[in-house]
Structure formats: structure tokens, C-alpha cells
């Protein structure tokens, strides 16, 4: 990052005085204004900005909800209804927050699969990528604890089922579960600590996001060709080019978000969560939120409790090893004809797992879950390593610019010097 800060020269005397004491303007300038961005980024690259928007949206709506919410087992459900009925625009803020969690996951899944498709996880972006996996894990923990807070039936039983997973750990499992609950079953202490952590974790996410963005600025962004920026002509400065595109994408995403909030606000939730939590009655069918379903299906696919928990954990942890499991030298799947097919099979398997997670664990659903789970792991452990040796990738273009010229209809070309501002990046 430091190699760009020199390009920023404060104009005013105060600016010079301040910059010499805290060079923050130079940092912003080098990271978000002059920073060279590949000129061929598609809208799939705007999901980083969309995720930042969702994170801010969740924190702001959450802070306002916390002003009215009461984290007490006897009062929580009622306080949520108070927000929905009596607080001015309370219904709007709560629906924004509840649906916002789903939108956050929609965006993060697009972001993750974009990364899988274009090989963004490969060298030199391994640390950037692993930080992303950590953000995803923090998001899952935050979302899970947030879903417990309204203290409806699905909150209570979801919390019971998920926390009980830890009892699968041999010897100390039971004790760990009691420490998680702060009691002998999910109860008031559990709700209290989940609220505390639900408030804390988003700020930890902010911290890891800062590292994620920092790590992004060292190698720069990947792009649809997967080949690095070779000359100034391959890139454009972040502002205004990427900025305006990101803002446009964020607003389009807000349209999508608003549709759910205003027209289908309860579609992504569960009807059972409008019934107050009752330890004496279980919902007939306990299901997690949609964004956990593929992992839930993997959990249930293994007939052994401990085995299921390990498989579910491994399903995410294995992502961290992708940069080394994938042996192909080529980043972008656009130039990997064989892998392209496996990529889409993998996407289909993930979606099928999600659907199976919503089904009761009986009959052929279990067998289908087991087949899909086996394939899920085979994708990482067999397909990725083997394909690197077997596959003959298509010839890569010499530069981003060359590839882009081929894409542009009519071959209008790029005016010389128009993209001369950014520096060369390796």
C-alpha cells in the first residue's frame, strides 16, 4: 500500500500539517482512489461492495433494534412484538434486519462462488482468501445467535439442536454444552449470552474485513481472465471507475433487498418462530435458516452424531486448503474447459444439499444427502488435485487488454493513453 501514498499531495497548509501527523488521506487515496483495478471486472466483482453495504446495514438496524429489544426469556418475544407494533417504523427496521441477514448470505455466496470460478483463492491471494473464510464463519455464528433472539419456537429448538452438537465431543462434550447454555438446558442465561455475542461479533467481522481489504490491496484484484495486470492499459483507477460501478450495483441490490422486506418479509423465516418458545412442545420439523441448509444436510447425512459434526465442520474448513488442493496453474475457469463442467456440477450439488437439508431426514432423502456429501468432499479432495494434471487448459491471452479487445463488439478499441494513470502491477 505504501508505494502509492506518495502520489497523494495535500493542497492546503492544514492538509500538509495533518498529513504529516496522520497520513490517513494518503492511505484512502492510495487504497480507494488511485488504486489500479483491472478494467475488465464484471458485476461479480461488485459483491465486495455489496457485502460492505450489508454489514453496515445490519449493524445500523441492529443497534436501533437493541434499543427496544429485551434479552430475557420471559420478555424477549413480547419486546419483538412491541417493536413490530408500537415502535415507529419498528416493523421496517426489524424486517430490514431479519431479511438483511438473508441478503448478506445471498451476497456472500455469490462472492464465494465467484472466487471459486475465477480461482481468486490461488497464489498470491491465499491469505486474503482464508481471511474471507474466517469472515464467513463469523457470519454464521452471528446469524445463528441472532435467530435465537426473538425467542420463538424455532429460535429455542434451533438453539437446542445446534448447541447439542457439541455434546458429540467425547468425554468433555456434556460439560461444554452446559458451559454454552449456562444451565442444564437452553434458557435465560443462554439467551443473554447469545445477545451479548450477537452484538460483539459484527464488530469482529468489521475488523477481519479490514484485514481482508488490506490483503486485497497487496496483490490487487483478480479478474475474469485470471492473468495479472501487466501494463497501465490493463487497469483503470479505482475512483471513479470501480466506485461508480459498485454504487450502481449496490442500488440494484437494494431493489432486490427491498422486494423481500416490503412484499415477502416473512417468506425467508419460519412460521413457527411466531409462536413463543415452549420447552415442553417441539415443532414437528426443526429446520435451520436457508443459508445453513447445505451444511445441515451434510450433518445429517452421517448416521453417527460425532461423525456428522466433524463432516459439517470439515465442509467449511476444507475451503482453507483449496489454494493447495487445486493444482492447476490457470486461475480462471474460463480457460479450463473440463473444470468448468465440474464447477457447475459442484454448484448443483450444493443447491441439492440445501434442498435436502430442508427435507425430513428419512427415506431416500438420507441416501441422496449421503451421495451429495460424498461428492462435495470428492470435489475438493479428488477433482481439484487431479484435474490440474489431467486437464489441458486453453491458451491464455497475453494481457487483460488483449482479451478485452476481443470481447468488445465492433472492435472499437481503447483510446491510447486513456488508461495511462494507474501504475504497473505485478
Amino acid at each position, binding site marked *: 500500500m505504501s508505494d502509492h501514498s506518495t502520489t497523494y499531495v495535500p493542497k492546503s497548509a492544514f492538509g500538509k500539517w495533518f498529513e504529516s501527523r496522520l497520513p490517513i488521506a494518503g492511505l484512502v487515496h492510495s487504497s480507494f482512489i488511485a488504486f489500479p483495478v483491472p*478494467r*475488465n*471486472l*464484471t458485476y461479480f466483482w461488485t459483491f465486495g461492495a455489496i457485502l460492505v453495504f450489508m454489514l453496515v446495514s445490519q449493524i445500523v438496524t441492529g443497534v436501533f433494534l437493541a434499543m427496544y429489544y429485551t434479552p430475557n426469556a420471559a420478555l424477549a418475544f*413480547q419486546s419483538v*412484538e412491541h417493536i*413490530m*407494533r408500537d415502535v415507529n417504523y419498528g*416493523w*421496517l427496521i426489524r*424486517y430490514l434486519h431479519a431479511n438483511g441477514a438473508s441478503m448478506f448470505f445471498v451476497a456472500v455466496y455469490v462472492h464465494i462462488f465467484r472466487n471459486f470460478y475465477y480461482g481468486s483463492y490461488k497464489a498470491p491471494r491465499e491469505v486474503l482468501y482464508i481471511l474471507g473464510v474466517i469472515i464467513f464463519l463469523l457470519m454464521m455464528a452471528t446469524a445463528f445467535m441472532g435467530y435465537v433472539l426473538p425467542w420463538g419456537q424455532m429460535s429455542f429448538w434451533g438453539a437446542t439442536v445446534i448447541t447439542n452438537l457439541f455434546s458429540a465431543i467425547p468425554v468433555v462434550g456434556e460439560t461444554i454444552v452446559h458451559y454454552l447454555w449456562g444451565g442444564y438446558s437452553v434458557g435465560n442465561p443462554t439467551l443473554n449470552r447469545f445477545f451479548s455475542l450477537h452484538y460483539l461479533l459484527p464488530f469482529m467481522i468489521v475488523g477481519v474485513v479490514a484485514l481482508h481489504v488490506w490483503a486485497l490491496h497487496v496483490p490487487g484484484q483478480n479478474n*475474469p*481472465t485470471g492473468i495479472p495486470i501487466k501494463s497501465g492499459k490493463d487497469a*483503470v483507477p479505482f475512483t*471513479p*471507475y470501480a466506485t*461508480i*460501478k459498485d*454504487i*450502481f450495483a449496490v*442500488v*440494484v441490490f*437494494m*431493489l432486490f433487498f*427491498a*422486494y423481500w*422486506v*416490503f*412484499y*415477502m*418479509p416473512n*417468506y425467508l423465516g419460519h*412460521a*413457527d418462530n*411466531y*409462536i413463543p418458545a415452549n420447552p415442553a412442545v417441539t415443532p*414437528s*420439523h426443526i429446520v435451520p435458516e436457508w443459508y445453513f441448509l447445505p451444511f445441515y444436510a451434510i450433518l445429517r447425512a452421517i448416521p453417527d452424531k460425532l461423525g456428522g459434526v466433524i463432516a459439517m465442520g470439515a465442509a467449511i474448513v476444507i475451503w482453507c486448503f483449496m489454494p493447495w488442493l487445486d493444482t492447476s496453474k490457470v486461475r480462471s475457469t*474460463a*480457460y479450463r474447459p473440463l473444470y468448468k463442467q465440474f464447477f457447475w456440477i459442484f454448484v448443483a450439488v450444493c443447491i441439492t444439499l440445501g*434442498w435436502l437439508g430442508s*427435507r*425430513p431426514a*428419512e427415506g*431416500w432423502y438420507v441416501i441422496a444427502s449421503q451421495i451429495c456429501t460424498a461428492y462435495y468432499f470428492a470435489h475438493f479432495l479428488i477433482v481439484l488435485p487431479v484435474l490440474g494434471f489431467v486437464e489441458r487448459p*486453453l*491458451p491464455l*491471452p*497475453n494481457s487483460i487488454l*488483449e482479451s*478485452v*479487445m*476481443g*470481447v*468488445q463488439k465492433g472492435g*472499437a*478499441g*481503447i*483510446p491510447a493513453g*486513456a488508461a495511462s494513470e494507474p501504475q504497473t502491477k505485478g
Partner: protein
Amino acid sequence: MMKRTLLIAAAVLGFSAPVFAAGGTAVPPQLKWSFQGPFGTFDRAQLQRGFKVYREVCASCHGLSYVTFRNLSQPGGPEFSEAQVKALAAEYKIQDGPNDAGDMFERPGRPADRFPSPFPNENAAASANGGKAPPDLSLMPKARTYERGFPWFITDVFRQYSENGADYLVALLTGYEEAPAGFQVPEGGHYNHYFPGNVIAMPKPLSDGQVEYPKNEAGQPQAPETVEQYARDVTAFLMWTAEPHLEARKRLGFQVMLFLLVLSGLLYFTKKKVWAKVGGEVEGHATPPMTHNP
């Protein structure tokens, strides 16, 4: 060929299996509601009738504990006049206290009070009703639903179908019938066509002519006094108690969508103009294989 037919048959059976697994219950018919769709609003007269049904039939067993009397005169609801609400609230006895002597006492209700529940607590409600407490109705249409299944749960998003709960409730209220031959209805249970498992603790609550509806100029009831109509009216009323800001939500939604459309249009052309400085936006990669590879 045979093998393939079998596979398809297995797939079809597989998809329909969960419907039967859920208790062999029938799928409720989808009804027309004034509050459905992006511009839906409540029908005031229907909500007022529905409230009458709730008050005269349901209220003896079911609470409405998240709703206050003042809500009845709020915009976007049944919109009774404030004087009507005040008079109505005064008809209820509300427990208050303790007074100066330290005793609890009863006083007439005020618009700010919540609807009092018919039973002091859940155990009392359960013991008075054969072991199963009648649930509170404040959130019913949002707290009940039925299995939509593939692919309807996808098309629902585009149709904005979110009246599953309301449709189910009408089906339930009108779904009492004779148990089919060979079906053993346990003691204290009642056969219902739409209830999961078909055996419901609640006896058939509605019958024709049970609730008198307001008359129109011709001296005829404003709506037919039938079980079907009662069920629809009380369900519409409960939809409002569950989602009292539904009208405001849909109205604001339209404004927000419109604004975002305009803003995204403006941003789109701004973006085009900005990118024109570097010869226009170019995305992605050339369709490989590249021909001019050196």
C-alpha cells in the same frame, strides 16, 4: 425405457412423499384476499365483521394478548371511531393495582389496555380445555402455514404469495367433517380435513347464522351469515392483528421501489458517462480459444 419410467415414477413419489408424511393432510385452497399483492389493503367492513366473530365466538377461549383496544381505531385496521373504541374497552374488566391498601382491583378497560385473556395462565387454559391450551390468536396467520413443496415455493416469490397462513386458517375453520370410515378419532378429539394429523382438540367453532352481521340499507346482512364467510372475515381480522402495519408496509414499499428504480437508472447512465472517458466499459474475457496467440 422401463428403467427410465420407473425412475420418473420414483422421483414423482419422492416429491409428493413429504406431503403425506406431514400427516396425510389436504392442501388448503388459495383464496382471494383484499390484502394480497403489492397494492393490497384491508377491507374495513370485513375487519369489523371479523372482529365481531372473534369477540362473540373465539374470545371465550382464545386470547388476543398482543393487541390493544386503541389498535382498533388505528389507520390501516378496522378503523373503528375513537368513541367506539372507548366504549368497547369500557365493557371489559381489567385487573389493576395494587391500590393504596395493597390490593389488586378491577376497573373498566381503557383504549391503551391490551385485550384481557380468557384464562389467567396457560395451565388454567389447558385444564379448562381438556389438557390443550387454546393458542393466543394475535399472530395466527403468521404462525401457521402449510407445506408448499417444489417448485411452488419458488413461484411463490414472484407471485408474492404470502397468504399461506390465512388460507390454512379458513380451510381449518371450514374443514370439520365426519371422519372417514375406519378412522379412529380419540376421545376429546375432532376430525378436521386440514389439520395436520386430522385430529384437532378444538370442537367445530362456527355454524351458520351464529353471528349477526350489520344490515345494509335493504335490511339484508352486509355479508352472508355462513361458516365460510365467518371464517374468511375472522381470518382477515387476524391477519390484521398479526401484521397491523401491512398497508403502511406495502405503500412505503411501492415508493421505495420507485425511488430505487429511478436512482439506479440515473446511476446507470452516470456510470456509462464516467466509463466513456476510458473508451467505455469492457467486461469479462475473450471467448477462448484465442486465435491470435503468438
